[in-house]
């Protein structure tokens, strides 16, 4: 199946893979060929594209994934390959989420976002 990872500024990656592990808002899900057409929002986390040649991991925040039987397109507000991600990136993401949490009315959602960011950071090993 085909996976496209698109950010507002450019198309980050487009590859043939066997499965994609997606950090959905309601929990992780794995899409393989023949998956039922689904649209899910993303929580901040790690997205893994598993291909025969190896697994590529991306840090994604915000956006959604559109799964069809033939492929997955991920529209993420921010997507960075895991090996390019570092502590500073997570620091800035977490700081941004905290700032948003301080100003918004939706405390619950915003705090969840902060928690997700911290979890994503732990998962990435930074």
């Amino acid at each position, binding site marked *: 199946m085909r996976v496209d990872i698109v950010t507002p500024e*450019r198309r980050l990656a487009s590859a043939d893979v066997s499965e994609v592990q997606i950090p959905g808002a309601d929990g992780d899900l794995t899409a393989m060929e023949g998956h039922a057409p689904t649209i899910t929002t993303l929580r901040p986390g790690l997205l893994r594209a598993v291909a025969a040649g190896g697994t590529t991991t991306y840090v994604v925040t915000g956006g959604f994934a559109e799964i069809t039987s033939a492929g997955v397109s991920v*529209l993420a507000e921010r997507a960075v390959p895991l090996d390019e991600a570092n502590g500073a990136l997570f620091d800035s993401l977490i700081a941004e989420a905290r700032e948003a949490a301080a100003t918004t009315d939706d405390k619950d959602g915003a705090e969840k976002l902060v928690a997700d960011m911290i979890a994503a950071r732990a998962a990435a090993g930074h």
Partner: protein
Amino acid sequence: MPSLKDLKNRIGSVKNTRKITKAMQMVAAAKLRRAQENAEAARPYAERMNAVMAGLAGSVGQSDSAPRLLSGTGTDKVHLLVVMTAERGLCGGFNSSIARLARGHAQRLLAAGKTVKILTVGKKGREQLRRDLADHFVGHVDLSEVKRLGYANAQAIARDILSRFEQGEFDVATLFFNRFQSVISQIPTAQQVIPAVFATDAPTALYDYEPSEEGILADLLPRGVATQVFTALLENGASEQGARMSAMDNATRNAGDMINRLTIQYNRSRQAAITKELIEIISGAEAL
């Protein structure tokens, strides 16, 4: 009749001007290419985003639980005009065409008894609208320090717009910018972003939604505003460089014409002076 010296100075100065406009044209051409690439690279995201939102809006739009960003506040009393222009001039009619469209829109709304608020992005538009619409200004976004337009800039503007909307400062928001058509043609465009409007004939594919359709739509609509602002900024960026390029091309050509005219005038007066001197010598000699 200017003296030979004056003409010579004049030609020199026009030649310098031509050098400058030529250089500006080439810089604009290089920037245009980059701006176009950026606009091109951003297109897949915006298109997908729009397609999915249009599908969702089609199925959720009519229900009462539809988010306010989609259904609106129920009135259209207060309009926010987001006028996006360049930070710099010397780009032909680029800034004026946006300002003219926005001014016309504002005057129509005012005549219909609506309240108009204006958020300016880029200082040229602000300068042009200040004369008659200064009372309606509610904010300004300065992009003069921005070297390379990023999504973060669009997000900042979108956040500003959304927080104003949440505080009930306006009912309808419209973006004004130039859509890039080609180097010689940029189309001033007014695009309503709040409440969101979509092409109605979007095909509604059958999808499972996680979480609910409403949940996804509520999550996507604010992002959609940012995406539209970003698209507008990029289109504007490409249009600005395109407009500047053709304006400077014209200026360069005009300077060339002017140099030709001045050179002919210079040669004629030089010839006239020589003839005059010859006549004086010959008639002097004949008188002897």
